[in-house]
């Protein structure tokens, strides 16, 4: 698992940024206020965009500068702004509700993240662009995002969980698919934007019907 050579400045920077993304995912999990959660998502998107720019500079892939710019504009500015605006209209509740207490949720997430980290290490997938530890961290981000979606019982947290899952996938793509044509990357991002709009519409429909953001009452359909 450990490389023979001492990691250079670039590898160190990249791994640190990936760790920051994972830590932000944990912060989202523990934050009780929905607004704080959306802001944390914005920060996380910003960090992922910074990593794209770092890779662009450090590895000489100029296309990634454009990706970093688009990703910053969409995920760190437009999407959080859309969600926050939606929440301003629906100002009934601002605190989310977990199935478990915060401490238990974090414990579960730690176990899941460790599982993801070590499992991906075993697969021995390595890229020329970023150190393999960044890939393991990215998979851990994806898994913790799933914990967030599963544990929270309000539409905002679940939606933010999905968007941050996409951040984790972006991180994976920076590690193993940095050469992917820009047009595809941008198409993925615009697809995300469409998904955000639809999530927003459905959140609004849900709020209009139940006068709340909680999903605890969505138990009618079963069997």
């Amino acid at each position, binding site marked *: 698992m450990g490389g023979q050579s001492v990691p250079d400045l670039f590898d160190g920077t990249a791994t640190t940024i990936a760790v920051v993304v994972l830590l932000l995912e944990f912060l989202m999990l523990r934050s009780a206020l929905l607004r704080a959660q959306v802001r944390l998502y914005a920060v996380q998107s910003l960090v992922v965009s910074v990593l794209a720019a770092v890779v662009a500079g450090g590895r000489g892939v100029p296309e990634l500068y454009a990706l970093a710019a688009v990703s910053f504009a969409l995920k760190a500015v437009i999407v959080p702004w859309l969600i926050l605006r939606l929440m301003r209209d629906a100002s009934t509740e601002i605190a989310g509700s977990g199935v478990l207490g915060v401490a238990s949720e974090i414990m579960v997430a730690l176990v899941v993240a460790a599982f993801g980290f070590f499992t991906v290490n075993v697969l021995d997938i390595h890229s020329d662009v970023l150190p393999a530890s960044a890939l393991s961290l990215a998979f851990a981000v994806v898994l913790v995002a799933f914990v967030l979606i599963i544990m929270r019982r309000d539409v905002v947290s679940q939606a933010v969980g999905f968007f941050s899952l996409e951040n984790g996938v972006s991180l*994976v793509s920076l590690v193993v698919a940095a050469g992917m044509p820009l047009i595809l990357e941008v198409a993925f991002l615009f697809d995300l934007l469409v998904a955000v709009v639809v999530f927003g519409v459905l959140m609004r429909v849900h709020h209009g*019907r139940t006068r709340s953001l909680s999903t605890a009452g969505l138990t*009618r359909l079963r069997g």
Partner: protein
Amino acid sequence: MSGVPFLDVLLLVLALLPVAAALASVVLPHRAAATLSLVAGLVCLAAVLRLVPAVGGGVVAVGFLRVDALSVVFLLPTAFLYAVAAAFTIGYLGDEAAQAARGSAAERREFGRYSRLFFVGFNAFAWSMFCAPMADGLALLWIAVEVTTVISALLVALDNTEGATEAAWKYVLIASCGLGIGLLATIVMYYAGAQSLGQSYDLALQPLIGHAAALPATPVRLAFVLAVVGFGTKVGLVPMHTWLPDAHAEAPTPVSALLSGSLLAVSLYAILRYYQVAHVTLGDAFPQRVLLVFGIASLLLAALSLLQQNDLKRLLAYSSVEHMGILAIGVSFGTPLALAGVLLHVLAHAAAKGNAFLGAGVLVRSFQTKSLTRIRGAIDRLPWSGPLFLASVLALCALPPFGLFRSEFEIVAGGVDSTRDVPTAILVVLVTLAFLGLLGAVARLVLTPASTAPAASTARGREPSVWMVTPVLVGVLALLLLGVHPPADLDALLRAAAGQLGGVVAS
């Protein structure tokens, strides 16, 4: 092959006409939008039927669009159901349109809004499902499948009842998470392909499948499993199926038909493209085992759920899970006969399930309930729709002379050929169990006299509009055709597509 401009035009028609119809529906009044949707549906159906003999074992490609035999097989359900459901919609919304026209200005406005949203969404949904099998490349395929999700989630929410809101939220969240995993699969496959195609390429199908033998095994294995779990969420494979009964039961009836017959098939198509790569790189054993496990789990859960279901549309939804399980098992058998059976099954299931949902829509409309215990004597009240619905369900149970009998027979025969005796036996037993559940419930609805119903309503029913009967009749005739004597062109297409799944690269 690609030198024929006429075929290129057909692809462009499929890629542009439905989206044009969706845009026009924004401004058109109800009646015009309904007619336009039907015309668009029929033109698209004609275009796809024209592609059937033309494609053969070759490829038609324009820009980002690329169609080979496997794609055409998966274009057929969408084209057929788009036309049929559009015709059904004329009757389905016709009553409400008449009612609204008699009502107040507010009611008229409300219906106008509903109708506009419906037709915009309906045409856009069909468009996205045409785009997915035509997309040249796994990345574009993922994008198209994601678009099908978001559009159909809005359509599920359209009725704006408590159930529809809940179903739409569950659907969009679960399916999006699934597609998040599907995106991971796409990226990991990109990484695998980059090892032999160079760092920058666009995941186009032909080079990727052509180089599949040279790809590294571990990433392909990872990508395949992620794809089965991710896209399998939208196929409705157990245990990722939980959104499916809700969304199918709560969506407006024409949308349910498209969801079940076409959307599930399109997602399966995505898995099959990964399968095409994976089974060249990894050999047969691993991909087939993965599909077998998910297939048997789906079939088992669906068969048991069918036995104790109390909601007509949920009953049909679980039958979809059952058939997706059969398809996964059929692919896992891997012999040419089983693969041809799988592809025929996709077509026959689309016709039968679309039909069953449309027929169930008539019953639900007529009896004002979805409860299986309260609908009785449908054959007395609905002299056309009752028997047609029963015929559709008999077809779904794979009784001869319908198409599903032929396809399931081929799948089972393929399983015996490949000496997978235990999975084949499990398949036969579980299909029989599902048959008992489905037919038992539906026969009671249609054949038991109305007087035995707990709250027997004595109101004389009447057949709804002819627009709601003819599409079901057309579907039954299509099923008979597939079962008794599939056209030679279709047979050749299915064999070419099965050959592709077996490892032949179309060029």
